[in-house]
């Protein structure tokens, strides 16, 4: 054997193998193997874990949300404007506050629904609630009152830092084969003191006083917290949809008569409603503009919002 013909070392063998190495398959063949042996089992396993996680988390979320719901109160806020909804009481359904000053409260205790002449208090019925848990920015709250032959749906929406809408739908239901012919809904709105309230058509405008009506002294000039603009619109308004409940006449500092009130009512009527169908009654749009103090920006004019309801 000549000296040059000695057997190559292992390192030489390996290095020559590496030099001449060519993959036996193309990339897609490797991909094939990877999908068969790695990706599919991994996807199967990970998928199961993800599913288990999300499934049980979803169940937990629902439970938590339902627990929260029956704590009795739900609130939204946008800037200084806050909307609170009490689920365990017949008042503040909803209550509207501006900079911690409550300027309007919807009162179910004093609100009624009349079905074919039979008047019922709204609070003395079954109630249900919901809101958008996945989208807290929706600022929307849904409440229902269900009585014999009717169901009232109230949707409260906080639109922006100055405006709230409350929309009413009604569903007429059959009772023993008969269904309602005439529905009248009266919603009571309560506040501390409305100063110089004026109603023009479907709009009420008044100054809101921070003190109670009885604390307003005759002849004095009360300090207004802001201006309330209340507008009602919809397909089933009564002839006079807004009415002041108790107006007190008082003498102003210049001796002229001035009006003060602490509640008003909106009224909707519906004849021959179609049964089991969501029928819109109307929408109440509440805007509050605080009195401008030094350095306080004047609130932008509030555009009439479109009806949230259908």
């Amino acid at each position: 054997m000549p000296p040059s013909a000695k057997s190559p070392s292992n390192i030489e063998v390996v290095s020559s193998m590496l030099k001449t190495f060519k993959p036996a398959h193309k990339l897609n063949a490797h991909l094939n193997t990877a999908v068969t042996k790695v990706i599919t089992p991994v996807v199967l396993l990970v998928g199961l874990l993800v599913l288990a996680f999300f499934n049980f988390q979803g169940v937990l979320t629902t439970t938590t949300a339902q627990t929260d719901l029956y704590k009795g109160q739900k609130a939204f806020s946008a800037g200084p404007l806050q909307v609170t909804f009490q689920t365990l009481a017949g008042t503040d359904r909803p209550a509207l506050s501006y900079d911690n000053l409550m300027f309007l409260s919807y009162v179910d205790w004093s609100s009624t629904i009349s079905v074919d002449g039979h008047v019922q208090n709204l609070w003395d019925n079954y109630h249900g609630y919901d809101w958008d848990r996945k989208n807290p920015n929706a600022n929307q709250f849904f409440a229902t009152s269900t009585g014999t032959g009717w169901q009232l749906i109230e949707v409260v929406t906080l639109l922006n830092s100055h405006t709230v809408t409350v929309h009413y739908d009604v569903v007429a239901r059959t009772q023993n084969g008969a269904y309602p012919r005439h529905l009248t809904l009266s919603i009571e709105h309560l506040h501390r003191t409305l100063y110089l309230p004026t109603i023009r058509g479907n709009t009420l405008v008044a100054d809101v006083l921070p003190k109670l009506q009885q604390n307003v002294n005759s002849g004095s000039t009360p300090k207004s917290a802001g201006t309330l603009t209340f507008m009602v619109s919809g397909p089933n308004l009564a002839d006079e949809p807004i009415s002041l409940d108790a107006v007190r006449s008082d003498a102003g500092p210049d001796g002229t008569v001035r009006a003060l009130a602490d509640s008003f009512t909106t009224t909707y009527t519906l004849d021959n409603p179609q049964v089991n169908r969501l029928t819109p009654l109307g929408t109440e749009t509440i805007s509050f503009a605080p009195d401008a103090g030094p350095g306080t920006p004047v609130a932008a004019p509030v555009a009439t919002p479109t009806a949230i309801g259908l």
Partner: protein
Amino acid sequence: MKHKARPQLRAQVRSRLQPPARVQPQSRPRTQPRPLLSLVVPTRHERDNIAALSARVARALGPLHYELLFVDDSDDDTPVAIRREMASDPCVRLYHRRPEERADGLAGAVVAGLRRASGSYIAVLDADLQHPPELLPDLLAAADDADIVVASRYLPGGGSDGLDGPMRRLVSRGSAFAAHSLFARTRRCTDPMSGFFLVRRSVIEGIPLRPVGFKILLEILVRGRWSRLTELPFHFEAREAGESKATIEQGLAYLRHLRTLRLRGPHGHGAVRYRAPRPAPGPDDPQPLDDDLPDDPEIAGKRRRHLLWTVGLLALALRLVLLPIGHWWDLTVDYNVFVDLIHNRSPYDTMTYLSHVARAAGWDFNYEYYAYPPVPLYIYWPLAKLYGLLHPNATYFIPVSGTYAMPSLGLDFFFLFKLPIWIADFLLAALLARMSGTVRGFRDYLLNPYVLLVSAAWTFDAVMVLGLVLGVYYLQRGKPVQSGLALAFGTMAKFFPALVVPTLLLFLIKRKRPLREMVAFGAAYAVGCAVLLGPFLQGLLYVVGFHGGRVGGGMNWEMLWRLGTFFPGGLDLDPTSLAIGAFGTPTLLIALLLAYWYVFTNREMGLNRMVLVTLLAFLAGSKLVNEQYALIVFPFAYLEARRLRGAWRWLFRLLWIVPFAFAIVRVPIDRFLWLFYHVLMGTRADWIAVSGKTGLEWPIFPWFNPVEQQVLIAILGVGFFALCMVAIVWPVRVPRPLRRYRLPMPSVLPRVPAVAAAAAPAAHIPEVADATEREVALQH
């Protein structure tokens, strides 16, 4: 009979050309009365290319009997160069046109050459060597199954670098587009402007060709007597010598040519069958996607066209008769969506709103509203606007339960709503005819009772199925981008096509297709979905959540428990059923993952079966299977029944008969006829709206007795689940003993081995000895 002899041509060409070797011109046999192939080469001032062309042709065609016919319009010494070649190569011939004969230009020269060519096949190529003569054997071999073989610059693997600059490429593309627009017969040809092609003699024999300018192939495609077209890719090379003759005048001549072709006959007619080139794959090459694709269906002939028209008109008439029927809840929702669209309101917002109301009011956990992706919104937007013009006071009709919009809807709403569904139905039928290779696919889809019921009574399932089938169709034909886009369209119409996206990717992996195809498919799908999703992502997520939270039911395994309650001593397992329903999504995902695993590891499965198994796995594993869901498997089960025949035909039939029966028993079917009641018996319609009963619940119908109805529903539901399972595990191929062969009959069609055919002695014919004689003979 000529068709049966064709395979020998391929063998003859291939065997004679192997091994490739330079053959002395003098040694070529000229022993047949007519050359197999005539090459028509128009020349004008191409003297520098003649020798090279002749040599390359000789090298390419080797011992094949051919003639190389130069039709020369030159004023220089090109004829001298050709005659020089004639002296050394007996295959070369010359037809030199006098100046007064050249008024018809290049195309006229080619026509003159075609008239004088004597070969059974005639190829045309340029003398400037931009058309590689080495492709001629492939063109000739491809003519086995074709009347015209076009060397295309625009097929994958081809190229048009020989065109001088982007402007000429643009002009070439534009010219092709104009031809495609004006002449349907040219549309399958990717390069009707090609100057390099091969035709059978019979294609042009007796056809008056009157080309203007230089686009002779277009003339042949439009006027020729042909039905089968094949293309091969080729690289349009740069000129070796000489100058291009493309000018603005030639462009104007082309426009004149188009006008003449359009206005003056004769025009060829009949079906066009296109066969894409199919090169033999190497061991490492990706496997072809379209192995078992049938040819497009023959629709040539008056009888077949009459059949198509009859089926189409009958299908349309049936749909018109069924116009005023529909599923009450779906139509109520669809009507409200129309109102949404009229007011430019998102139906997803409406659904969210109504769901909150429903939860607060205790109607349901979710209000079942528009729970689909957004493509139907795009489709219905203009139609809803039109409806809004017709009905300016259209308002919402939001039912709580037991009352529906349907009786108060007019026929115009039904027509506008069903129009896209009908269009999708017809497109699907045409697609199914193509995929099955028979016009019966058209008939069997359009006139199927189940399809008619789904199209008439439910929503836009046909639109979704169209996207699904189109995606599979494109992928089978090797078009991953179009496939991804079609599937995205289907997915964004209803979610189901998303199920087969992994299947199609697995199919590409199984076939070892290039990675770029998978990326192209996935990217096209993702981009398509994203674009169509547009501003509706939030709404779509809400809809997905809605589907996840729905209770189960329908034609699925949950019926097992319901069935158990009807037998003596049977357990009431509703809680179990509910528990399974709660885990419906994990169950479905596991079923799908197993299906993906199965279709990927089963090497015998073709694309159609893979898709079918995936969809069947969905139907078997889903917690909710409505009657109309079975439409997604209809086309694929039909194709499988065409392929496997035998018992699969019955599987296919059962796959639509069981859902059809389920719909009839569960609904019950007569409640689809509310509008009829509304038109004919107004009081009954009102009663239906309130009570949900038609008043026609006669004892003869099974739904008169709720128990019997429930038992029937449960049996059909379990039956459909079992059917899906059987179809999933059914053998991919027919067991060998059961397969019916049509054996070749040796006495009628003896097979001649290719080698033997090549070696067989040919008949001797006298050789034209003198070059001058060859030229003079052509002059006359």
